[in-house]
């Protein structure tokens, strides 16, 4: 089985390298969109969870717990099958439905990242701002959030790395991401190990370089402290 390993590897790469790179690009794009919208939605969720109004905080907490307590694959299935049924007028593509599912999932994790980032700011900071006469909103935007961002950004970078790997589940719906390309190449060349390895290496290169970038960025944030 392994005698033809190197020739096969060369063959698969030679024939499909364009597709692999395209898949990698789509994986990055999908991850980026997910984290971007996940961050917007997750930040809103975090503020909702901190609300003093129970009608706002309880549903937000419930949402986060349910999303974090169930498998992503199940959420992907549910949403990609349900969404077109519930909202047929939107005429969502498979890619769009999968993206929505990933965003809804990521938002729950980002919510916890933002919440932890805010909680890590010394409560004395908010107290000092309030005693100067700043209201709750001014205290949040001028004093707490600028300091929380330093805790939040590196964690968001790690979320990006996680999402890159999780988008592989989207290949269940053949949306053209890196893992989907694996299936295509494997089906067409009847090789298993070789395209697997190629895909694995690409995932690793993506996540590893991103992690290194985040680390460098984190060091710079720390230095400015």
């Amino acid at each position, binding site marked *: 089985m392994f005698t033809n390993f190197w020739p096969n590897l060369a063959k698969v790469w030679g024939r499909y390298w364009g597709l692999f790179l395209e898949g990698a690009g789509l994986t990055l794009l999908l991850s980026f969109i997910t984290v971007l919208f996940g961050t917007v939605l997750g930040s809103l969720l975090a503020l909702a969870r901190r609300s003093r109004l129970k009608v706002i905080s309880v549903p937000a907490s419930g949402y986060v717990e349910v999303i974090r307590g169930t498998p992503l694959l199940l959420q992907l299935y549910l949403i990609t099958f349900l969404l077109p049924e519930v909202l047929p007028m939107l005429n969502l593509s498979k890619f769009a439905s999968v993206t929505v599912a990933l965003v809804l999932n990521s938002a729950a994790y980002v919510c916890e990242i933002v919440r932890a980032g805010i909680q890590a700011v*010394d409560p004395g900071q908010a107290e000092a*701002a309030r005693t100067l006469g700043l209201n709750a909103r001014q205290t949040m935007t001028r004093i707490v959030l600028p300091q929380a961002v330093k805790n939040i950004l590196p964690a968001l970078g790690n979320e990006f790395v996680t999402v890159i790997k999780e988008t592989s589940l989207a290949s269940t719906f053949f949306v053209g991401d890196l893992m989907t390309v694996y299936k295509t190449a494997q089906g067409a060349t009847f090789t298993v190990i070789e395209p697997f390895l190629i895909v694995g290496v690409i995932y690793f290169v993506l996540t590893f370089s991103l992690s290194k970038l985040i680390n460098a960025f984190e060091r710079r944030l720390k230095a400015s402290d």
Partner: protein
Amino acid sequence: MIETVNLVKNFGSLGVLDGISETIHKGEVISIIGPSGSGKSTFLRCLNLLEVPTSGQVIFDGVSLTDKGVDINLHRQKMGMVFQHFNVFPHLTVKENITLAPVLLKKLSPAQADKRADELLQRIGLQDKANEHPRRLSGGQKQRLAIVRALAMSPEVMLFDEPTSALDPEMVGEVLQVIKDLVGQGMTCVIVTHEMGFAREVSSRVFFMDEGRIHEQGSPADLFDRPKSPRTKAFLSKVLY
């Protein structure tokens, strides 16, 4: 100027303030002393509603702060507060620490605030640090910055919550000097402190708190030299040696 009426504060089932009725007049300098856990800080933090009293009233300039519809933020602008752990804003420069609140709350124009910050920094000898971040300051410098940050809002009263307790010993003096200068200018001050010598020197009245009550109070001479209650005596014998 500040009056508390039967002020009670409980944390869960733990009673911290046990019905304090007291009046602090304009121009007075009140030191609050007492053992830890006696409710000194909680009492101070109730005065600007940083802690919301369980029951009772805080009346400031004739307004009952706990009443519905009172804009507490407006009243807090007139009550400066200084904390044990300074709580200067690390993401702002020294000068921005001072100008943020007056400009944001439209007490001063940016130009006026800038000028005022220069004066205040001059006063505490930090003018050459104006554009640095507070991480470059020593503890004593941070606390002096925290004091003038509060002064930039031109408060009517200053509340000090153990302002020197977190300082290295050699920095206590410089912070106390700034407070002394303030007192000299006639600022109404309420100071929770463990610095007995300082309390004796600057105060017009001293409160001895124990178990959530003002157990004894009087002029510094009366309280420190002629304490009436055995508990006050016992406390003083432990801290004055």
